[in-house]
Structure formats: structure tokens, C-alpha cells
């Protein structure tokens, strides 16, 4: 069977929920960030698949993907700066230990 839009959407949905699964089960900030990257990538794949198979003459999905990649890069940089700063003050990047604001 020739792979089409539905196959790519299946891959994208599976990747999204793999990312959600990682986000729910992990308690380490860096691995949670990795799950977030998987989720963002599945969204990108979705945009590209729709751009190719549903509106092939336009480029809107392509530009959304470019902008999402740029925002993901900025987000990862800021998140890792925060994580390293948290590690400096807490000696741990486990989310269950980061409870300074709780009390």
C-alpha cells in the first residue's frame, strides 16, 4: 500500500503520544525537555504532511514548521539555562526536589 496522508498522520500521532507518555512518566527535567522536543516534532510532521497532501500549491504549513523550529530552539536554550541554574542552587534537577516556591 502506497503511503499517503493517513500513514504520516499515524506516525505523527504515535510520536505525539510517545512524547506525552514520556512527559507524564519522567521526573527529570532534561528528559521531560526531550519528550517536549518529540511532541514539537510530531506537530511539525503534521504541518508538512498537510501542506504536501492537502494544499500542495501553498507554503503555509512549511512556514509554520520553520517558525516552530525557531521557537523550539529558543525554548530549548532558555529551558536548559534554567535547568543548569536550578542544578547550581539545588544540586538536583528532579522536579520533585524543586519545591522552593511551594511553602
Amino acid at each position: 500500500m502506497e503511503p499517503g496522508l493517513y500513514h504520516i498522520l499515524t506516525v505523527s500521532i504515535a510520536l505525539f503520544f510517545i512524547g506525552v507518555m514520556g512527559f507524564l512518566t519522567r521526573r527529570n527535567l532534561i528528559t521531560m525537555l526531550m519528550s517536549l522536543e518529540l511532541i514539537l516534532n510530531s506537530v511539525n510532521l503534521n504541518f508538512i504532511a498537510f501542506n504536501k497532501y492537502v494544499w500542495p500549491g501553498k507554503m503555509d504549513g512549511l512556514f509554520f514548521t520553520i517558525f516552530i523550529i525557531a521557537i523550539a530552539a529558543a525554548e530549548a536554550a532558555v529551558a536548559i539555562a534554567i535547568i543548569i541554574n536550578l542544578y547550581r542552587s539545588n544540586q538536583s534537577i528532579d522536579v520533585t526536589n524543586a519545591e522552593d516556591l511551594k511553602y
Partner: protein
Amino acid sequence: MMNGSTILFYTLAALTLTCGVLSIATRHIFRAAIYLLFSLIGIAGIYFWLSYEFIAAVQIVVYVGGIVVLIIFSIFLTHQAGEKLPKQQLNRGIWAMLAVFCGFALTMVQVLQHPFPSGDGLHPVTVRQIGEKMLSTTDGGYALPFEIISMLLLAAMVGCIVIALRSKPETT
């Protein structure tokens, strides 16, 4: 019948999903980063398969060359070598698995039932078209989002420097 293109797609999809699952399942954080790397390479391969070469190149440059390297450096800064992550609670894993499975089933049912309008033929996108559209100020051009993204990147850069500067432990 399976031709080369079909086999290539299924190989790339299997690489992406397998490495994604391994990336969230392994208890070695460094291996998780390497599996994430291969998963992102698989997605870049799918972009190549869809003949969006520019996006595939951007994916490899930004994700594989940038974000994964950043993640690996932060792992080096925050973890001892060979240290394993603590075991996950079984309870939480079961509930997360249940929620994820329900969400997956619901979304798949919705997507497979929905008839998407199918476009006609191939319109290969050249880098020249992308560049002209990105800097065009006419209706449907992307000049304004481009400028906003540049401001966002500047703000993120300044923010990272400000966060990283506060290294002195003042009130601990």
C-alpha cells in the same frame, strides 16, 4: 506491492517511532539523548521522503546540530557518568499508559474517519520560492512573523545570558 519508496517510508517511520519509544523508556539519560538524536534524524528522513529538502536540512541543522548537542552538554553538566535514573513508580506508569492509549485511540478514530480533501499532483517548493515568500510584505507574505521571530531569538539570547550570569549563591 512494495516498491522502494514504500519500503523507505516504513523504514524511516519504524526508526523514528522505535527510537522515540527507547528514548522515553531507557534509564540511562545519555542513551535517551542519543535515541532522541536518531528519532530526529528519522523525521528529517521523512521530510526528505516527502521532498521537502529545505525543511529536512533545517531539521538536521537546528535539531541534530543544535538542540541535541545542547541537551548532551547539559547532561554532562548535571549528571555523573554512568548514573542511572531512579526507577519510575509503577502506579504512575500504568495511569500514564492508560491516558496515552485512550488519547491515541480517540485521535486515530477521529483522523481515520475524517475525509481530507486530497490535493493534486506535486508542486516542488524551491528555496527561492521560500525566500521570496518569507520576505514579501504583500498579502500572505511572512515578513512580519520573520521579524517577530528575530526579536524572539534576541530576547531568548539575552534571557539566557541573564539567567546564566547569576552564578553567585546569594540567599541559599
